């Protein structure tokens, strides 16, 4: 998600994030309630059309999220062909494909901040038991932010070990990476303090700049 948002001003971009997530959830439930091949095939056509025409996304924005799981869809189809029947396999594959494309459309047209704001709203009833929804939102945003960073640090550790003759890195990466991540976490904690994370109002007001 951290690199999947495509700025734009289409109708789909303007739909509130909460509504998009609700429609995505409804689509998921609906697709799993039906076993009709024409319906799930129609759903695929519909979400692709929404992505390309209504959201004005390029093919690449949809493919980038679908491509990594194509192999698993093929395995799923082959499994059903061998164990059940081709029609059931087609329904299962198209069902997942429709959901994947729909999720791609949502992530490509919705800023992370807006999605996080929805999560914060959903978590707001937890306030009565002392949970701070803003903290949950911040954790999600920071997770998305730091996944590529930790991956980058892991790659550097791997390179450093390879440069010193390690032919297979394996679990040897864990300790140095953990040390780096913990050190970085200490600085991130300071940065959060310095940037007023503790000053956040009880109900975080997300800036329009990032919504």
């Amino acid at each position, binding site marked *: *998600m*951290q*690199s999947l*948002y495509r*700025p734009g001003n289409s109708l789909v971009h303007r739909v509130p994030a909460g509504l998009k997530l609700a429609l995505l959830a409804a689509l998921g439930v609906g697709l799993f309630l039906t076993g009709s091949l024409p319906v799930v095939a129609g759903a695929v056509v519909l979400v692709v059309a929404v992505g390309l025409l209504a959201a004005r996304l390029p093919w690449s924005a949809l493919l980038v999220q679908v491509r990594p799981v194509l192999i698993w869809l093929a395995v799923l189809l082959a499994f059903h062909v061998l164990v059940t029947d081709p029609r059931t396999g087609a329904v299962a594959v198209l069902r997942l494909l429709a959901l994947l494309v729909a999720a791609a459309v949502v992530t490509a047209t919705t*800023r*992370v*901040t807006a999605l996080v704001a929805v999560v914060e709203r959903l978590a707001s009833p937890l306030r009565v038991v002392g949970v701070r929804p803003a903290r949950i939102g*911040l954790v999600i*945003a*920071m997770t*998305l*932010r730091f996944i*590529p*960073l930790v991956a*980058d640090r892991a790659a550097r550790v791997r390179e450093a070990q390879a440069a010193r003759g390690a032919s297979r890195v394996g679990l040897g990466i864990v300790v140095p990476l953990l040390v780096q991540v913990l050190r*970085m976490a200490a*600085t*991130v904690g*300071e*940065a*959060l*303090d*310095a*940037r*007023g*994370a*503790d*000053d*956040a*109002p009880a109900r*975080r*007001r*997300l*800036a*329009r*700049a*990032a*919504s």
Partner: protein
Amino acid sequence: MRWGRRPAALEEAPSVERTGIELRDVVHSYGDRTVLTGVSLTLTERRVGVIGANGSGKSTFARLLNGLVLPTEGTVLVDGLDTATRAREVRRRVGFVFQDPDAQIVHPTVAEDLAFGPTNQGVPADEIERRVADVLDRYGLAGHRDHPAHLLSGGQKQLLAIAGVLVMRPERIVFDEPTTLLDLANARRVARVIEELPQDVVVVSHHLELLDGFDRVLVFEDGRVAADGPPAETVPWYTARMG
């Protein structure tokens, strides 16, 4: 005493008399290891540099100035506000830019990260939008507004980190080795940005040329201020000392 042009938001803030940053007999220890001993000084200058060998206490000193680190003994006052008891107010007045911008950028995309600090301060959304647009434009990041932060270059990340502090409108900014991880071109660019800032700045750096034109330079040695004066005097003293 020379003050810079004050940021607009602070002119609207409740006034606290600007008396500078004062350290009184400050000692700081991490467990048994004492990293600062008996530091007493007042910073009222517009541009203050801090230099010294690794482990001399520079970074701890910098963190004391906005309450990120509290003194084990002694007191740090920012415009009369004690960092130990008025930390939030102090941090609103004193911004902090870290050496590694990756540790300072906490949101996935550029604009979202810029909005983080002022959102925490409770700044109205339209004002945040205005400030974010302003710094994006000023630092050549306008085209990167919705880009993932991790895809920016090192120089752009450091500019984003600085911009993330500027949108909070502090009246002083502490920089902890802001150019250490940058190549020459980006280091010069960041140096120019610091030079043009209207805020008072305290810059910890190993890049001595960054401190050209500063009003005052402190040299730290073994947790103490070993030299204190204009850069024309302190920098050559330090350079000779380092051999």
